[in-house]
């Protein structure tokens, strides 16, 4: 489903973010990408979201070369990928419901579609009770759930989670990981970038380890070893 083929990304001033990275991700797979800060985890996700272009190599998504997607087609492409970040990226002046609905509004969905889909997604992430709360009235874990709900609303084929537990305590971190596992079980591919050792070790899922921009380990039931 996703294929990185000898991908290298060099930023200006010769900063090598990732170097000759190759790996494939199958449909409905749960893959963790681990590494220290600056190892290139976020760059990999940005390349996949077409926010950055690789200096060398090719990235395929569902058989399409991402580098060849025209800028005008980026919005459509991004609707196929749900992204979740450490800082949640919720709009502070919109309620949980409105934040999720906003993702549908920007693509011109009808009010009926919004009223039909948003409550369902909020139920999946367990936020039905908090639908009318603003982000500042939610805990860190709830904010991240709201962000995941928004990422799910387009029914994406893949969810990219960049340090989703970075701002959360161990209890809420586990909560979010359980939710991501549930999403994967429901049929969505999940790519999780993190440097949370306990989570990785408890998951017993595939782990790709990055160091200085290179893949140094790719194990089916990996552990966090650095």
């Amino acid at each position, binding site marked *: 489903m996703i294929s990185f083929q000898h991908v290298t990304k060099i930023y200006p001033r010769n900063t090598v973010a990732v170097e000759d990275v190759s790996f494939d991700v199958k449909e409905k797979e749960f893959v963790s990408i681990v590494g220290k800060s600056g190892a290139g985890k976020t760059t990999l996700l940005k390349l996949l979201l077409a926010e950055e272009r690789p200096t060398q190599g090719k990235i395929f998504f569902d058989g399409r070369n991402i580098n060849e997607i025209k800028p005008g087609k980026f*919005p459509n492409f*991004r609707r196929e990928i749900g*992204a979740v970040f450490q800082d949640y*990226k919720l709009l502070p002046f919109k309620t949980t419901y409105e934040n999720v609905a906003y993702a549908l509004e*920007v693509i011109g969905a009808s009010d009926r579609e919004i009223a039909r889909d948003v409550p369902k997604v909020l139920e999946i992430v367990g936020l039905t009770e908090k639908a009318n709360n603003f982000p500042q009235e939610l805990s860190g874990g709830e904010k991240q759930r709201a962000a995941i709900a928004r990422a799910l609303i*387009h029914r994406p084929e893949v969810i990219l989670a960049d340090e989703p537990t970075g701002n959360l305590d161990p209890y809420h971190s586990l909560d979010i990981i359980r939710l991501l596992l549930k999403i994967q079980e429901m049929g969505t591919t999940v790519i999780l970038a993190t440097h949370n050792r306990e989570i990785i070790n408890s998951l017993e899922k595939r782990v790709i380890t990055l160091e200085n921009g290179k893949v140094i380990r790719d194990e089916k039931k990996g552990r966090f070893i650095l």
Partner: protein
Amino acid sequence: MATVFILLLTIALATSLFLFRGFSQFLLSSVEEKADISVYFKEEISESDIFEFREKLSKVPEVRELRYISQEMALIDFTEKHKDNPVLMASLTEVGRNPFLASLNIMASEPGQYQAIADFLGGSDFTDLIEKVDYYQRKSVIERIFSLTSTINRSFLFLSIILALVAILITFNTIRLAIYNSREEIKIQRLVGASSWFIRGPFLVQGALAGILAALICLLISSLIIWGLSSKVETFFTDLDIFQFFITNFWQIILIQFATGILLGVISSFLATRRYLKL
């Protein structure tokens, strides 16, 4: 605020340019309408020679009207006109004889035909009869007004272009700031797959709204100024009613003002979103 102000100045200048063009056309046509050619005959020329000349001249197709003013008529006209001026009257008495020349006043069918008539006069067999032709003096007045108005027109145009550029720069900067202030929201919009026009739209509307607001203010101010100036201008140019001109061309003026404002606003916003929105 600065954006609206600079847009307002630009629109005001564009409006002035339009009004001034109307005004200068009026001025030129009124001078041209009043134009004529006066042929003054030498003192010793007899009236029968003059009538013969008039007969020939009346056959020139460009000539619409011919009016003969004899020496006596010229004297009567002068004394009638200046009877209240003792100095002029005294100098006339001092001369002791009728100093005026008989003349033919020629009106052409159209203002552009005077040159053809002047050429006819210059090339005719009657140059011996003619003391002087005073068309050339008027011609220079017309040319001077024309060159003055076209210089003013060019200056207005030049200033308008400079101001339009400044307005684009300032609006561009305002939109750049607005984009910077909305950077988090823009990131989220991109994240959830908003189309580029969905993200760009609000900034283009913001530019257009600044243009519309500036145009509205300009329309209000220009209406008040024209209304206030109308009576004052009429004391200088009796036939020129600038308020009437404003009313007659009201829709055209509105179109100029709104088109200038909206175009400048939208163009600057579009440039700013192209430069600063990473989509």
